[in-house]
């Protein structure tokens, strides 16, 4: 965490992304706005289909278009709007100032090239290093992420490494050019629990060492609690709550957040007879209700909730709800 004044590294404003499907246009991300400060780890939490991955991909212009389409919004990185950049402009940013690591270490690395070849490629592209300089820097990076015997491993192929190792190679690749912002899309979901612990520890350590901003996209609230400073909860393409992590877990304001927290199985001293359940299912993005998107599943919903869509309200902590759980949060209308 950087001391003193932290500048706003990334500022997303009203990002809206739509996808063309057989049954019509779907709005995967609906007017999402948030900031990331330098040296801050922000968690983007939600279940499948909530729009968190698409949001992460949009920052680096990796949303496939077609069928995707960024219809509105700005993504300001150090003041520059990334959405206005053309492809070559984006390529200069990717891997250099902003890096990304993905969920599946199996498919994110090219199986026919050694990891050394893939990593030095990144370095030579962005930093114009010579071959031997790039190789030396790569070995250093591999050591930094905790890969044993890096001088030997650099010439190995991805299939010779385990899942956890491959993920660390991806992290090394992402960090090799010293990016200011790292986007991690479910980086540990495909890993075993013990490996996950190692990799998360690595990410946090490197984050503070490099003083990077990190956007951590995940569905695992446990991961958020352990690593993030702030968390944004997404539902049906919108941000429904944004708060510092301590506050979010202790007194969640949005009923969805509260429902999620109570329904996750966790190790308890006295086990429960039945887990609390959030009734109903996530609504189809093609047939969204007119009012609050969570109203159908919410115990607290009234007729006003179903008629009008609430705005995101609050100052440092935000919630999108007419009847939030915590009284200190500003509600919307009603």
């Amino acid at each position: 965490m950087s001391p003193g004044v932290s500048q706003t590294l990334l500022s997303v404003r009203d990002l809206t992304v739509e996808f063309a499907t057989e049954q019509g246009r779907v709005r995967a991300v609906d007017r999402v706005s948030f900031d990331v400060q330098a040296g801050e780890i922000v968690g983007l939490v939600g279940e499948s289909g909530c729009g968190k991955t698409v949001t992460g991909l949009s920052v680096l212009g990796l949303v496939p278009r077609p069928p995707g389409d960024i219809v509105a919004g700005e993504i300001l990185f150090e003041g520059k709007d990334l959405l206005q950049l053309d492809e070559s402009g984006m390529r200069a940013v990717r891997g250099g100032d902003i890096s990304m690591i993905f969920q599946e270490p199996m498919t994110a690395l090219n199986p026919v090239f050694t990891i050394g070849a893939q990593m030095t490629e990144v370095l030579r592209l962005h930093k114009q290093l010579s071959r031997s300089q790039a190789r030396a820097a790569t070995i250093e990076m591999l050591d930094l992420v905790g890969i044993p015997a890096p001088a030997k491993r650099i010439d190995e192929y991805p299939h010779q490494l385990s899942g956890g190792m491959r993920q660390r190679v991806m992290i090394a690749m992402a960090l090799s050019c010293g990016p200011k912002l790292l986007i991690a899309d479910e980086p540990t979901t495909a890993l075993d629990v013990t490996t996950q612990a190692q990799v998360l520890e690595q990410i946090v350590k490197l984050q503070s060492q490099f003083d990077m901003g990190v956007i951590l996209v995940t569905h695992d609230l446990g991961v958020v609690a352990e690593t993030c400073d702030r968390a944004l909860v997404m539902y049906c393409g919108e941000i429904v709550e944004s708060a510092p992590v301590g506050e979010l877990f202790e007194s969640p304001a949005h009923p969805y957040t509260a429902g999620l927290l109570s329904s996750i199985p966790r190790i308890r001293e006295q086990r429960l007879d039945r887990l609390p359940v959030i009734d109903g299912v996530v609504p189809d993005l093609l047939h969204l209700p007119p009012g609050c998107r969570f109203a159908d599943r919410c115990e607290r919903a009234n007729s006003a909730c179903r008629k009008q869509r609430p705005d995101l309200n609050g100052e440092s902590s935000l919630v999108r709800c007419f009847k939030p759980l915590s009284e200190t949060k500003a509600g919307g209308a009603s």
Partner: protein
Amino acid sequence: MTNDVKPLLQVRNLRKYFPVRGRLFRTVQAQVKAVDDVSFELMPGQTLGLVGESGCGKSTLGRALLRLHEPTSGEVLFNNEGDMTDVASMDKAELLKQRREMQMIFQDPFASLSPRRTVAQTLLEPLETHGIGTAAEREDKLKELMKTVGLRPQVLHRYPHEFSGGQRQRIGIARALTLNPKFIVADEPVSALDVSVQSQVLNLIKELQEEQGISFLFVSHDLAVIQHVSDVVAVMYLGSIVEMADAGELFANPKHPYTQALLSAIPVPDPKTKSKRIILGGDVPSPMNPPTGCPFHPRCSQATDACRSSEPVQTVVSPPDTTDSAPDAGPHTVSCHLYAP
């Protein structure tokens, strides 16, 4: 055991090895010891939670019990009206009959239902295969199954792709219930589901445990889920059970270093508990190249010379804590040199 109720399932020295064949001449060069000398007992109505990470053999074990993988050696004794018959050595005809007592729930809701068969066809298949019931009786059975899992009978004529993951998993559970089995292997039944749906399906499974008295082998990598549904918990590592105890006892007093590391590795949704993490060195090993001696020693911070050279033996750490309310309590056993007598 202080009572004389026979166990439903007795697994003795079960082994499943997969041969690794050479490329040119297809001779057997090595064995992948996916399940290596596993033994345990399961009482009627009890749920055994089997926990471990990838490559530990838990899924293979579940399948070997149902003979979806043919066991290499060992016995799987099932209580059929008081007779303990060995499933592993049954012939085809006996096995077909036996299948009515043992069923399975699968992990992937998107791959476990045949995409070109309706729900009705999928649920009817067990009944047709075993020639059970008239057409009218089958129809009633299907309606009853749908209600049990919380789906409306109107959707019986739909195809799997029209349902969500959680709903498909319910259909899979309905299919497993069709033959009224006494024993179900649940292989990671909620791992592929969204968090808010997991609790729904777990509650359904608990209902089945309580209202229908079905015994479960519940396989999962998620200790929190295991705690919620299991009476007894077994921890697997590289093909062997390294620790087994009643659920409460295991979570309160984990003995094996791997169990302790596993418990501490779980990210807790509570930022205040900055747990003292036991971070294991190294990676989950591949069963093709197991270490000598205790399979866990390369990653164990407490490994001794004995650990590196000889395999540990299963020792009883504390005896069964049987009470009137827990007549089926079992002992707490560990396979670790630290506890060797």
